[in-house]
């Protein structure tokens, strides 16, 4: 899986692509931690339109990243999950913890 980032006025957007499972989770968590520490954003957005698969390992990554942003007095949100990713987010009840929005293609288009 791949991660790329863009930063603009306090908002760090992380574009995840590929498949996010247990095999990829630990490395991804490290990359997200490093990027948050580098930019110290007020808001961190996980842009998931390029993510073709995610299982509960992705839930752990989201929960840990949300905790990290809370410690920095910032917030985490999720944008544009695919249908498969959305079903996993819903089954885990992640929307109680992290706002999820769809249809905003941001800087992608």
């Amino acid at each position, binding site marked *: 899986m791949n991660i790329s980032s863009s930063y603009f006025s306090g908002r760090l957007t992380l574009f995840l692509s590929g498949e996010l499972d*247990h*095999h990829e989770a630990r490395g991804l968590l490290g990359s997200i931690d490093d990027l948050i520490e580098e930019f110290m954003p007020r808001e961190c957005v996980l842009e998931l339109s390029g993510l073709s*698969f995610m*299982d509960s*390992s992705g839930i752990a990554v989201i929960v840990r990243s949300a905790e990290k942003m809370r410690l920095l007095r910032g917030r985490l949100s999720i944008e544009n999950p695919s249908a*498969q990713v959305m*079903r996993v987010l819903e089954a885990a009840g992640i929307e109680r913890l992290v706002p999820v929005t769809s249809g905003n293609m941001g800087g992608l288009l």
Partner: protein
Amino acid sequence: MKEQNYIKLEFLSRSANEAFARAAAAAFASQLDPNMEELGDIRTAVSEAVTNAIVHAYPDSIGRISMRLRILEGQLLEISIRDWGRGIENVEQAMKPLYTTGGQERSGMGFTIMSSFMDKLRVRSAPGKGTTVVMQRAICPRVGSR
């Protein structure tokens, strides 16, 4: 129930095999002509069960995992994931949402996702002997298909 087709695969408990297992399961299931949501649910449930075996059955070693998929009468897909690892002392507790003995990268949602994405989920385990997870999902016949 009558078995119409099956495959059986065996692989090592290396995390690189998680992607292989769910891709193989999806490829076998595709003969039932599932829709995108059904296929996604199958891939996700297989990924969860295989990851559990890798993380929990063999925490400090590499062992065998076997995956059997069967097509039963009535467009029913049955997935069995078996390991010969540590086993689960208390299956009921292990299946509770958010319960995990895994590390930072585990969420404790694996069984919750398996049970909500599959029609049936059965877990058999004995400490020191291993664990078998059996899941079933009926695939809806599509209008106008074969």
